[in-house]
């Protein structure tokens, strides 16, 4: 029985197909969940659909949520290339968002967008990279594990952000002043009218371009290729003259820069300011996005859209089912993808793959 299932799963090995499998399973579970919560199963599904891909507004909201996930997912992929686990994206994007909002609110009123926006991007990149670089240097030079330092640095941001807002900036409402209009990014609805009212901005196409560019750089550039080698075998790279600590720090810097770019979608493209909790959680969801879509830019974009859809659907069905049901669903998607991936592996007794058939003459 299990052999048949395994063979079936093996024929469905491409990651995209696996994700589809997982989504089908998740939809089934959504129906079960809503039934358990006393709502009509298909009604919940219909509500979730119309709240996401069913309307122009819904699509825009999905794109907005996916923008954030694209940046954090990509940030995680980059760190993973050198074998590091950037769990600190949460703190990096929080700090960068605040920094961007503060800088944006203090720009001279007559500064043109052509200057303001690159300045904003540079600010997001610098703060994100700087904060991630801290964890990178701790790991590469002192051997402090990046997961431990990442979690700690997240906690530091958790307390530093409200303190900065209240004690330093005097924003008792836990919200910064609005950024200069020149620094804000154009809404997508200005180009595509049907997205009207949604939070999607040109940060989404920007994120897509960044994803493709980063993957291309990882595959083709000298440093990008060495990242992958370092991730696969640091001891070999050391012996072959690749500066492993340096590559690790560089990867963390890039990873943090990408996490910092989350601020484009939230602060610059939507809120026009920073308030406590903006973009929160994306750092962790990005890990799931990366795990599903780390193989190629297309897979990563697809994966971000899936999780963006789930997040938006959670809001849409809130009237029928508690929003947390979608959190359950996200977790189930991750587990299902993992399970399908494992089922697709050939059975491996000891070290070598064994062909399923055997016959004696």
């Amino acid at each position, binding site marked *: 029985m299990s052999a048949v299932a395994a063979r079936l799963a093996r024929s469905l090995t491409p990651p995209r197909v696996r994700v589809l499998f997982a989504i089908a399973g998740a939809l089934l579970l959504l129906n079960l969940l809503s039934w358990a919560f006393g709502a009509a199963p298909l009604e919940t599904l219909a509500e979730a659909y119309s709240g996401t891909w069913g309307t122009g507004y819904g699509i825009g909201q999905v794109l907005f949520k996916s923008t954030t996930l694209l940046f954090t997912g990509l940030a995680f992929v980059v760190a993973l290339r050198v074998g590091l686990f950037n769990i600190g994206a949460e703190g990096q994007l929080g700090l960068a968002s605040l920094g961007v909002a503060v800088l944006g609110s203090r720009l001279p009123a007559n500064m043109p967008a052509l200057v303001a926006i690159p300045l904003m991007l540079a600010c997001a990149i610098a703060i994100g990279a700087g904060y991630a670089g801290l964890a990178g240097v701790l*790991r*590469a*030079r*002192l*051997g402090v594990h990046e997961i431990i330092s990442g979690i700690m640095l997240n906690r530091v941001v958790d307390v530093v952000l409200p303190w900065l807002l209240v004690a330093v900036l005097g924003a008792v409402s836990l919200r910064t002043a609005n950024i200069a209009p020149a620094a804000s990014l154009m809404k997508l609805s200005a180009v595509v009218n049907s997205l009207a009212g949604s939070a999607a901005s040109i940060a989404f196409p920007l994120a897509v371009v960044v994803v493709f560019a980063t993957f291309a750089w990882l595959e083709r550039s*000298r440093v990008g*290729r*060495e990242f*992958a*080698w370092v991730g*696969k*075998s*640091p*001891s*070999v*790279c*050391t*012996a*072959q*003259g*690749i*500066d*492993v*600590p*340096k590559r*690790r720090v560089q990867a963390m810097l890039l990873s943090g820069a990408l996490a910092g770019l989350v601020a484009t979608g939230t602060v610059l493209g939507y809120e026009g300011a920073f308030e406590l909790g903006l973009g929160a959680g994306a750092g962790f969801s990005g890990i799931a996005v990366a795990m599903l879509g780390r193989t190629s830019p297309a897979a990563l974009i697809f994966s971000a859209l899936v999780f963006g859809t789930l997040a938006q659907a959670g809001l849409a069905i809130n009237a029928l089912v508690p929003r947390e049901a979608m959190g359950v669903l996200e977790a189930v998607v991750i587990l299902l993808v993992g399970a399908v991936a494992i089922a697709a592996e050939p059975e491996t*007794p*000891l*070290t*070598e793959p*064994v*062909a399923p*058939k*055997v*016959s*004696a*003459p």
Partner: protein
Amino acid sequence: MNQAAEHVRPEGSRGSGPRLALALATRLFEDRVAVSSLSITLEPGRIHALVGENGAGKSTALKMLAGVLAPSSGGVLVDGEPLAPHAQAALDRKIGLVYQHFMLVDVFTALDNIMLGAEPVRRGRLDRATARARAGAIATEAGLEVRLDSSVSELSVGEKQRLEIVRVLFRGARAVLLDEPTAVLAPLEVAELYGTLRRLAAGGATIVVVTHRLDEVVRFADEVTVMRRGSKVHHESLSEDSRSGEEASVLLERLTRAVMGDEPMHTLTPRPLALVAAPLLELVGLSVDNAGSVDNAGGVDNAGGVDGASGAADGSDPSTRKQASTPKRRPAIVDVSLAVAAGEIVGVAGIEGNGQTELVRALAGLVPLAAGMVRVNGDVLFTPELAETTAVRVTRARARGLVTVHEDRHAEELVLDATVRDNLVLGELAQLADEGATQARRLSRFAIEPANPAFLARQLSGGNQQKLVVARALDRGATVLVLAQPTRGVDIGTARVIHQAITDAAASGAAVLIVSADLNELRTLAHRIVVLRQGSIVGELPPSATDEELGRAMLGSRKLPNSELANSATPKSDVRLGNSP
């Protein structure tokens, strides 16, 4: 398995081993045919040798016999009955495989490794006493001396191998299959290993050995099967008469031809005399601490090196001094001075674990010096005073033209999960002008099979991995070559090509230092051979030195005849590990 605790009787004394056979067995990997319609029968009570070039399918055939790989078609027969395709089935049929790379848990003791997966249990608790008694009885009967209570990381290579054999016997194996067991052994250990295998065979066990070394086959095997490109091309039974003298050399020649097929025989051109030239590579009073960890990828090295330096300098016995404070940190290299001139090839002989690994790692810049100095072409390359990162040292060694081949290709040479294409240029992206041309040149240098640069390095056989490593090193424009086990696991034909390439490199002005466990290799290539024991150079011999002379230098004054060594009551590992008497 729990019942195993009840009897302490050694497994070795039980009747005849199984008759193993492959019947028209074919095995494919993806589309590649590794073994094609192979039929062989292996009778108990004999030592069977399976020989052939890299990628001839020897290891695949062995793994099919051991139930680790299933044939794509055809069958495996044990005493005439088909074998189910999983390793447990093979264990049930008393077949045990000793892998080429040891499958041992380094932090466990030898005894725990023997028990692992077959633990005798008494009242829900591990029964070490029973296990110890059984393992001890098995070891004694087979003449396999292993220190059961030492952790595996402290055992020598030869001892680990004996431990692997004891382990399969502990599980009741009556057929012992060994994949290139002698690749890592010193000559004395090889003779010892075959002594053990002979005893097991005499007791009725079925012994199958995959090897590259035809001289071993001639000296020790009862039957030999030669494979080429997945098929059997030659089989013969060997008699006692053909083990030495004229007949032996005729047999060796016949086997060599069978292995190589119609490939041209390469003969090494006579090497030029050592030139009277200024030394290119100089080691002056070199001392190196035993760094322990291999993965010391990052950071500035700690001050351990400085500590060791003072120890060596003040003349106290560093080995006892170090052992007193931290038992596992013996200085690996002690006060070694050596000069290698341009055009000269110097061989380093020694029993494994006497500082060869650390010497090579230090010359590559992977570990800091504790004392002394390394000079290349008259300029200082390394001294212990500089607190530098590993990356800085390694890069400088490269920049000065010092190229290294390390003995552990998985830990230091190949990113196994990267493509062959990437591995061909690892760490050189900044220097190469034309990457594609470089890759093509290196790929074809020793005819890597399959010649597909998109394969992962992991998918190459061990010998082809080694070809890649050596081709890359010899193509780096070295002025100083430091090569550890350059032809380990490589077939005869390729080994000769590699030897020729090394000789050519020296002839064109490189200084070459070769560390090898293969004394014939050293004799073939080197202008002189230095012997390393306990981290020091204890002698220098001409390449004409006999095994006996080299062996005496390697073992020191405690040279014993083979038979005595094998049955010695004192743990001979003392000799092997090179501890002071």
